[in-house]
């Protein structure tokens, strides 16, 4: 493919536009639906509309819309960095794409073993979705990860995978694993099994939510401080919350960028550890060997 041709450049521009447009759409939606408010308000996700369903109304909330925005951004970003791949590297973005793939393959092989090496696309998908969702708060959008429903969905998905790999040696072996090391610890084992998705969901959700709560509190505190300190200034200067400029951004580097990326990494890391840890590798090998012998006979 000729990377200098006009057609290539038009497709590139289309991908870049499709990365930016969803975020612009989200900001426009936010501005249109958010009434101007006085002071601080800490609310959950806004509900845009409801679809009537037999059991319970299906709510389309801000969190869902924003996570679709994050999905679109990631999708077109992937298309963009893999656009124009070739054996002989012509574009700089190919180095970036290869670096991501190599890093994730290395991470998955290191933490999960070679049996799970096909898991790297899933791991990077969950990592990218979590990171981009948290980073949406940099644009003033509602981060979907500060809604428990979104994160709990991911945690339940991971829980299903964990249970699937625990059941690899048959349901009887799975149920027997609850009575170890002693039989009377069974209730505790069941509780700790159920606690896995709950703690994963709450860890991610609590971190992002606490970040946004602390930023909102700090903004209101700075507004009050500048109102009381600078009220002697003449004219409109007295009403302007000058201290609000810049200072929240410094805190936002930690609360939004660092915390969001760290939580994405930790969620992916725990996913890997739980899935690989739940798989009874030795038992599975024994079972496979026994089956092979039976098959030969």
């Amino acid at each position: 493919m000729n990377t200098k041709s006009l057609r290539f450049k038009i497709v590139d521009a289309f991908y870049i536009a499709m990365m930016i447009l969803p975020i612009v759409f989200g900001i426009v939606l936010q501005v249109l639906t958010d009434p101007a408010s006085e002071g601080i308000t800490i609310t959950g996700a806004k509900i845009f509309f409801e679809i009537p369903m037999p059991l319970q109304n299906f709510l389309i909330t801000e969190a869902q819309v924003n996570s679709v925005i994050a999905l679109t951004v990631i999708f077109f970003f992937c298309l963009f960095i893999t656009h124009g791949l070739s054996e002989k590297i012509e574009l700089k973005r190919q180095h970036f794409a290869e670096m991501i793939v190599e890093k994730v393959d290395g991470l998955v092989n290191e933490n999960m073993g070679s049996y799970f090496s096909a898991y790297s696309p899933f791991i990077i998908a969950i990592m990218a979705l979590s990171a981009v969702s948290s980073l949406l708060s940099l644009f003033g959008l509602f981060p979907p990860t500060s809604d428990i429903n979104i994160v709990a969905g991911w945690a339940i998905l991971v829980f299903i995978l964990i249970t699937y790999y625990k059941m690899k040696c048959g349901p009887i072996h799975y149920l027997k694993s609850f009575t170890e090391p002693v039989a009377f610890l069974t209730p505790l084992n069941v509780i700790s099994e159920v606690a896995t998705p709950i703690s994963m969901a709450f860890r991610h959700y609590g971190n992002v939510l606490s970040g946004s709560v602390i930023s909102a509190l700090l903004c209101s505190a700075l507004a009050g401080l500048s109102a009381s300190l600078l009220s002697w200034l003449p004219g409109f200067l007295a009403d302007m919350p000058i201290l609000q400029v810049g200072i929240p951004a410094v805190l936002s580097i930690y609360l939004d960028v660092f915390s969001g990326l760290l939580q994405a990494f930790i969620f992916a890391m725990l996913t890997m550890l739980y899935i690989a840890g739940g798989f009874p590798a030795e038992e599975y090998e024994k079972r496979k060997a026994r089956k092979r012998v039976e098959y030969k006979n």
Partner: protein
Amino acid sequence: MELAIGIILGCCALGAGMAMIAGIGPGIGEGNAVAKACEAIGRQPESKGAVTTTMLMGCAVAETTGLYALVIAILLIFVAPNILVDILVETISKL
């Protein structure tokens, strides 16, 4: 009626404050983790990357109990008062 609502709001605020006592635990735990990580880096500066990654993982896991308390406190401040006042009004209107 006003007194009852006042008691509900006050108790919710007190409960939220008490729930955040749980923040002590993760604070001490993470402090210990970072102190040990600093020692380890001081002993073996070449293993800085691995130690830092492991420490951040451990810190994030240790933070979970504090975050449970945070979630309870946020529920007590923003969600519980409305529900409890609604229940109170309903009960009084039934009498």
